[in-house]
């Protein structure tokens, strides 16, 4: 089936989760992601799934933890303050090596903030977010199609690495409608999980824990987790490139901003400035390698974000100091326009006179 249907991003994501075999959703209402729980509260009961509106995001993530420990694909979704409340649970999930999907349709902060589009939770998402030495797998869709596709991908990676995964998007991606192709053949049967808690019939009792008190035990556990994150960096970095071969400079942007950047790149091309783009799809693991190699050939980089410079730090860590780096950011619900970006491109062009 390649029929295109018009879908809202949040709904596409919910459909992607169902396509991935997720039958357990636990969540608490918060704008701008309410379409996800509303849709799943109607759909999951029809297919033998479970939907619970929890008393808080703290309870939601712990229900995900419990369901995931029981061997199934489970998820929650939230925004801003709710995602903050989930950090405790996500830390425990990383520590006890439990998969599970957390969707963050970001809202502006700090505090209650607002519901306008933003990318202000990049640090929280990509640095672990909760306490302890761990990372989340973070995927950043840039279209409604990817809201569907990456929901499936997030479950795959989360199970592969037994680590929580996050979809990081914004209100534009959540609320916007675009044509989507749903691959109906993708009725995924989630993998068997021999570590899951099912009652000990026919085997020895097993347990999941995060507390390690004996000398050296916690360190060994942390080093095991590190190996996993290193493996992620080697095997599962996702990114999109555009026009890098003959470019004079390139933009690094993720999610919604990368869509706007494509327009700016076309406008620059009309002025005779050749601009390429690298769009990280996995924010953790970050596409360090491709940025480093591209910057060697094209040492002019413009980072654009809807925040005051968060992914910027990962770009800085990827490139040599000699590379010319410029940042343009709109925080607090401000959306960079193609004209804004074109202006930044021109500044770099004039300064450098490539």
């Amino acid at each position, binding site marked *: 089936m390649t029929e295109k249907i018009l879908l809202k991003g949040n709904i596409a994501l919910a459909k992607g989760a169902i396509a991935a075999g997720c039958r357990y959703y636990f969540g608490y209402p918060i704008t701008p992601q309410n379409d996800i729980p509303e849709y799943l509260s109607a759909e999951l009961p029809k297919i033998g799934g479970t939907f*619970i509106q929890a008393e808080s995001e703290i*309870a939601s993530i712990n229900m995900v933890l419990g369901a995931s420990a029981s061997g199934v694909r489970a998820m929650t979704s939230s925004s801003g303050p709710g995602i903050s409340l989930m950090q405790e649970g996500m830390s*425990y999930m990383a520590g006890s090596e439990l998969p599970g999907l957390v969707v963050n349709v970001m809202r502006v902060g700090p505090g209650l903030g607002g519901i306008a589009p933003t990318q202000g939770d990049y640090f929280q998402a990509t640095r672990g977010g909760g306490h302890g030495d761990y990372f989340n797998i973070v995927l950043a869709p840039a279209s409604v199609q990817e809201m569907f596709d990456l929901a499936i991908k997030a479950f795959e990676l989360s199970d592969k690495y037994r680590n929580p995964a996050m979809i990081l998007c914004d209100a534009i991606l959540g609320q916007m409608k675009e044509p989507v192709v749903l691959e109906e053949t993708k009725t995924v049967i989630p993998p068997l999980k021999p570590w899951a*808690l099912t*009652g*000990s019939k026919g085997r020895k009792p097993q347990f999941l824990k995060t507390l390690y008190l004996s000398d050296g035990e916690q360190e060994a556990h942390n080093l095991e987790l590190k190996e996993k994150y290193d493996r992620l960096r080697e095997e599962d970095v996702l990114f999109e490139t555009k026009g890098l071969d003959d470019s004079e400079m390139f933009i690094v942007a993720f999610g919604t901003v990368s869509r706007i950047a494509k327009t700016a790149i076309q406008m620059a091309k009309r002025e005779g400035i050749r601009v390429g783009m690298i769009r990280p799809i996995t924010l953790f693991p970050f596409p360090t390698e491709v940025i480093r190699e591209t910057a060697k050939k094209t040492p002019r980089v413009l980072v654009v974000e809807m925040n005051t410079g968060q992914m910027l730090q990962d770009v800085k860590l990827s490139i040599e100091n000699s590379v010319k780096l410029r940042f343009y950011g709109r925080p607090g619900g401000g959306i960079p326009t193609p004209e804004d970006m074109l202006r930044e491109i021109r500044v770099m062009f004039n300064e450098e006179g490539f």
Partner: protein
Amino acid sequence: MKKVFSRPKSLIDRQTHFCPGCTHGTAHRLVADAIDHFGVQEETIGVSGVGCAVFMYDYFAIDAIEAPHGRAPAVATGIKRVHPKKIVFTYQGDGDLASIGTAETIHTANRGENITIIFINNTVYGMTGGQMAPTTLLGQQTTTTPYGRNFQNDGYPIRMAEMLATLEGVAYSTRVSMHNAKEVLKAKKAVRRAFQMQIEGMGLTFVELLSACHTNWRVKPLEGQKRVEEELIPYFPLGVFKERKGKDFL
């Protein structure tokens, strides 16, 4: 000769880390007894809270998981919804259940999740070294109420079994004690009743066990048992506060 008393097979033959005289060991035994009694060792999943009871998986020969502090009922909800036929219980202390996890406790009970909550009330934070618990009695000295708990500053000790009995989702709510053999036998019946009602699908079952923490009360074990009887029970009366007779909620 007929063997009349032995270690429950759901309990691993291992020395515990509990202080000598601590009633956690007794409470573990009562839970293991209930699991054995109903023959559900291989069908049971335990959820431990944070505190002295966190090492459940070291002592129970069952599948088990550690929940974040206070979140055991939410974790148990996730497990039970995936495995509705399995026996799921949480084992939580007073700080875990009645302070940091109060919301999870009340809402899990209110949803009538078909799980069993074993609640150890010893009026003090044990593992962290004897700080005030939500159940600390007025006037009781702890490391954070060095002048005694004062309601004007610290509020009042909370009665969980009575509070939960008011919720429609709760099938069984009781408070028992373990300060002498007679009370332990009553407690054993209560724990069995709670598991039985879960097996019958009647809703959330809650057993509050008054427990002594001699170490943090700074008393000898026997004095601790005496304190349970003379000070705890007058404020935390024993009894059944709710017991559903049938699936009358359906």
